[in-house]
């Protein structure tokens, strides 16, 4: 990535689809599955993670020339843990109910491999502007993926969306979807859809390339 010149917009866009952290890279699965039982929980989790990604990316990028190579992972973890603590207390101040619903998973953003992965693979090698764009893209991609999983689970599992009833009275809720196994199944469903779309795209590209050569 360092050799090929890419515009900041490219760094942003790649996180949305081509390198989507959840569906393509399969990083940060634990929070993606654990707190995505309602749409609002998954949005909150996504935003919290995006904030940490952004701040950690910025700090790592600014400090990249000062952090010794041998101690870099430890330093990154310290930086990330600091921002996670901020988020933890901020959410507690905004809504104690939300904090209770997300539980220990806010603190567990520290060990979300997505954040450390981006700090190590991208922010430590690029200037702050690009690091911010990359973190934003990844964060939005992550939030979006979480949101999609959360929407499916809430609609099917509770018959509501953002707490608003979606179906007439007779609807039998799929309790399984709000339970842990529903997380795995909803995620598997989205993954299948994404895989299928990618397969279609690949085939279309291949056909276009063949037509171009003949």
């Amino acid at each position, binding site marked *: 990535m360092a050799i090929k010149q890419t515009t900041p917009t490219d760094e942003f866009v790649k996180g949305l689809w081509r390198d989507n952290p959840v569906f393509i890279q399969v990083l940060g*699965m634990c929070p993606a*599955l654990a707190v995505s039982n309602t749409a609002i929980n998954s949005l909150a989790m996504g935003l919290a993670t995006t904030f940490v990604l952004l701040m950690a990316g910025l700090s790592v990028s600014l400090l990249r020339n000062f952090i010794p190579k041998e101690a870099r992972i430890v330093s990154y973890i310290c930086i990330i843990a*600091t921002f996670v603590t901020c988020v933890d207390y901020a959410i507690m101040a905004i809504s104690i109910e939300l904090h209770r619903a997300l539980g*220990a998973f806010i603190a567990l953003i520290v*060990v979300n491999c997505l954040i450390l992965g981006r700090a190590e693979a991208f922010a430590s090698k690029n200037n702050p502007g690009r690091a911010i764009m990359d973190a934003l893209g990844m964060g939005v991609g992550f939030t979006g993926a979480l949101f999609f999983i959360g929407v499916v689970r809430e609609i099917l599992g509770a018959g509501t969306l953002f707490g608003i009833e979606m179906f007439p009275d007779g609807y039998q809720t799929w309790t399984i979807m709000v339970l842990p*196994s529903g997380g795995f199944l909803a995620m598997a469903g989205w993954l299948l859809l994404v895989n299928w779309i990618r*397969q279609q795209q690949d085939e279309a590209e291949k056909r276009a390339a063949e037509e171009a050569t003949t």
Partner: protein
Amino acid sequence: MTDASLWSIFLNSALINNFVLAYFLGICPFFGVSSKLDTAWRMGAAASFVMLVASTCAYGINLVLNAVGAEYLRIISYILVISSTVQLVEMLLKKLSPATFRAMGIFLPLITTNCAILGLALFQTNKGYGFVQCLFYAVGAGAGFALALVLMAGVREKLDLSNVPQLVQGTAAALIVAGILSMGFMGFAGLGR
């Protein structure tokens, strides 16, 4: 301090609220190394060991932090102390018992920054367990993690031999299997509490 009995704490963390299948902790190694039974065993054993160490550390740190009134440092000190202690134990193990070290090998450092470890430390703090309760909680969590990993590996070894549609191969298949396993573990929900 809760007064739950040690046995129910163990059952709770191992089966009813299995760390992998009910709390979604440690999903990365769960999918990463669960393709062979042999590695799954070792990973499970190493994780149980690290959990025990981490649990002890976390209990100590929590005492100190509460004493000086610096609870906001909990996350940062947990992760730093736990990972350095595990590294220390790793060196000791290498010196004292090379055979065990070889068996656990690369897995020890990998597990340290796993969310199951930090999750364990945070949960036991939130629940306010005493020292012995913490130990039982950690052993249960480790056993549950190993159990889930081994079960998953067993299923995936069989799955490799069957003819799976190309679209479903890989992560999607693993997720579906995990979903079904998790449904099975829901059956334990009536066991205790």
